[in-house]
Structures are given as C-alpha cells and as structure tokens.
C-alpha cells in the first residue's frame, strides 16, 4: 500500500511548523526526508502517526484516510514508527520489546515464524533476547527498535533519525538493513540528518526547510554536494 501525504499543514500555537507538504511512499521504496534542525521533519512524522493534529491536508494509506486517528489506530492500520531516540522499554527484556511490536497486529497468527524471520534479520535480538533492552549498546538498541517496528508487519516503516549517535560501521549496518526491508515490499520513509548517505540510499529524497519541501534529490545528486548545500541554505 502507498502512503500518500497531500498538502499537509501542521501548526503549533498558531505558528506553522509544516506547510503544504506532499509526497508519496510506494511499496518497496525508500524515500528520504532531510533538512536542518527544526525544518519540520519530525513534525511531519508525528502528524502522520496522529501524535500531533494536522491543520489541513490529507494522510492516506492506500485509499484509507489516516488523518484525525489516534496513534494506536494509525499503528494498527499498518504504519510503524521507529521513534527518535529509539524509545525502547529499557527495563523490559529484548523479547518483551519485540512482543510489544505485535500490539499493532489484529491477530498473533504466525508469530513464531515472524520471530524467526526477525532473528534472522537482526541476530543480535536473538542473542540477547532475555537481556534488558536498556543493557544493550546504542547500535544494538537501534536494531532492536527497528526489529520491534517490523514485528507489527507494517506496510510502511517510518524512521526518525535512526543513525543518530551511532558509529559509522553501525550506520552502514542500519542502512543496509533498510535496503533489505524495502526489498521485502515495505515502503520506507527515512528522516535523517546524514544528507549525503540518505540521498545515495533513497529512490527520492525530499529536502525540507522551514516547514516546506524545497527540492527533491535522486541518488545521482549524492555526489553533487553543492546542490545539497544550496538546498539547505535556500
């Protein structure tokens, strides 16, 4: 199913944080969303998830509108968010964190197979499944956060700065995992600060500044740093 965001507008106390933002995320496709701090990237994700109300526009998954729904209803309709800072339940075990990912599913049919599949994709989750999530390293926690979102079997996976604070080799791992996830037919919307890497990975990368979409880049632009810098400064 395709995630369609049309003319989205979000305001905080009268101040527009996001204005007239439109984009789509198709199944199996990675779409990037980059821009400076405060550009409205996280706000866009929060509006999609129903964490903040949108003032105008439309958010739809397939032909079903998500606008005005509660976060749990959005999650249950097939959109999973890997939040900024991971937001794991540190005092619960790795396995319990993964089981919480099942909350968005209508039934728990086929859970054993799904655990096996997730453990194959994220071996670290199996190795430490009885450990407290809070005892994992930053990179392991990020993998767990993505694995937890994947347990929901989402149609669309949203990620809010998954590379934040990670070592370069771990970033490589996370980004290659996102490719694998997209190959399985899941649409991925990647919000990032690492502009160049995101542009190289994503089919399309939208540059957001001051709450507006300024520019759309393709992997061919990844080497063209001038254009990206200009987009940031626009």
């Amino acid at each position: 199913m395709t995630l369609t965001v049309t003319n989205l507008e979000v305001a905080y106390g009268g101040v527009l944080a996001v204005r007239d933002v439109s984009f789509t995320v198709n199944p199996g496709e990675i779409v990037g969303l980059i821009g400076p701090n405060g550009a409205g990237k996280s706000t866009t994700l929060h509006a999609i998830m129903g964490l903040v109300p949108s003032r105008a526009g439309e958010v739809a998954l397939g032909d079903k509108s998500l606008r005005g729904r509660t976060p749990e209803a959005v999650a249950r309709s097939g959109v999973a968010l890997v939040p900024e800072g991971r937001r794991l339940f540190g005092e619960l075990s790795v396995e319990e964190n993964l089981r919480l990912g099942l909350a968005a599913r209508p039934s728990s049919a086929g859970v054993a197979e799904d655990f096996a599949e997730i453990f194959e994709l994220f071996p670290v989750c199996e190795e430490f499944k009885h450990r407290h999530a809070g005892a994992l390293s930053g990179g392991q926690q990020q993998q767990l956060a993505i694995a937890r979102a994947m347990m929901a079997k989402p149609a669309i996976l949203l990620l809010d700065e998954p590379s934040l604070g990670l070592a370069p080799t771990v970033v490589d791992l996370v980004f290659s995992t996102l490719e694998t996830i997209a190959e399985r037919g899941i649409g991925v919307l990647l919000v990032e600060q690492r502009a160049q890497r995101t542009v190289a990975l994503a089919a399309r990368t939208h540059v957001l500044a001051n709450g507006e979409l300024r520019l759309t880049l393709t992997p061919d632009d990844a080497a063209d740093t001038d254009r990206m810098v200009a987009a940031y400064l626009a």
Partner: protein
Amino acid sequence: MSEFLRDAIDLQVQVDAIGLGAIFALMAVGIGLVFGVMRLVNFAYGQLIMAGAFAIAFASERDWPVGVGIALCFAVVLALSLAMERVVFRPLRTQSAAVMLIATFAVAFLLQSIALLWFGPLGKTATSLVQLNRPVEVGGVDIRKITIVAIVTAAVCLVLLVALLNRTSIGLHMRAAAIDAQTARLLGVRANAVSTVSVLIAGALAAVVAVMLTVQFPTVTPTFALQETILVLAGVVVGGMTRLLSATLGGFSIGYVSGVLGGALPSAQSQYLPSLVFGLVILVLLLRPDGLFTRGRGLVERV
C-alpha cells in the same frame, strides 16, 4: 515500655497485623495499578469499597445467601469503576495530575453523599459473614478465621495479578503503558483498553477488600473504609508510587505497623494511633522521599 514491647511481639498481635497488612496491600495494588497506567491518584478508591460494603449489607439485611451478597458487591463495585473510568478518568487523562486528583476527590465525596442520602449516617449492618471472626487455634495461638482468609486471599490475588502482568499480552501492554504511554500507543497498544482493564482489576480488588472489611467492621456507614484509604494512600507514597511492587509493600507496611501499634497500645491510649502512624509517615518521607522500597533514583526519564 516493656509491656508495650511484649504486646508488640505477641504472636496474636503479629498475626492480626499481617492480616491487616494483607488487606492494605490489596488496596495499595488497586491504587498503584491505576496510578501506574493513568498517572492518576484515585482518592475515590475508598468509596468503591464503601459501595461494595453497602451491597453486602443490603443483601445481608434481606437474608440473601452469602454468595449472592458477594456477587452483588462485585457487580456494584465493577459497574461503579467502569462508570468512573468512562465519565471522569478517560476524558481527563491528558490533564494535569492536580486536575485528576481533584476530580477523584469530587467523585469520592459525591459517592459518600449519595450513600448518606440513601442509607443515612448510621448506615447498615452486614452480618452474613461475621462467623469468620471466630477464632481457630493454631499452635496455641487463637487466630480469627478472617485473618487467615485475608492473608490467603491477598496472596492468591497478588500471584494472579503477577501472572497476568507477566504472562499475558494485555499484562505486557499494561506494563509498557505504565513506563511510557506514548510509545506504547505508537506501537498499537490501545490506551482505552489498558486503562479499562486496570480500572477493572483495581475494582475487583476493591470488592475483595469490601468483603473482608465488612467481616471485621460489620457496621457499614458512608465513611466506611475512608480512614483505611487515607492510610493506604500514605503507605503507597511512603513505599514508592512509581512501582507497583514498592507501592504494594508500602501498603502492607502501613497496615502491619498500624496493626502492631494498635495491638501494643493500651486501649486507653488507642486514640494516639493515627498520630503515631502519620508521625512515622512524615519521618520516612523526610528520610526517603522517593520511597522506602525504591532503589536509587525516583521518578526519572526512562530512555
């Protein structure tokens, strides 16, 4: 003083104190569970118990079988709990702690006033289970049957609750919502379902407490269980509100301490009991403001 100490360690006083602690522990779980999931201090918890006690008295005065009285007690308390959750707690869930606390004060006094209008200040008498006050001799000590029933029931309820929290998915969802409600909702945990279930469990525990308290205090008035609730609220804070376990231990401790002091104080000086207990509460709060049974930091941002 030596007489005081001798009475305090008297086996019978000890057993009664543990029995009271067990009942208070159940109340602490009821208050702590709802606080954990909704961040709401339910001051009206005592009035749920009062309503359940009136249900038992109502059935008892009509000579209905004991089972019917207990069933009526559960039905009344659960229905009231659900109504409270839907009409007051749920709409106020996003409001500040102060707003929610005052709202539960209002509910508490509303229910108390309704009880006063319906049953009068003298209340009703619940006699159907008083035979449980008769003692049985265990190892040379006379123990009232209700004390044994209270301890066993509390233990069974706590084991069932721990199993529910640790072994079922709704239990996992409740624990997650208690730690970080927003993230739980983002994962698809239904906030309404979680709060309904926790309020219903708290209600069921209130009904259990109502049954056991009416055995010991058969005269049911509109202020029934009010003092106990205030003690338990103090116990929950003293133990540590942020954890169900520490809140439960706090509830047990304040019941136990009240029981021991009550048993050891000569009857002529029993009016000093509340001042003694609350003096201790203040002392503990000054020494351990985060809770007697919490480890290290208190309310911290969990990442």
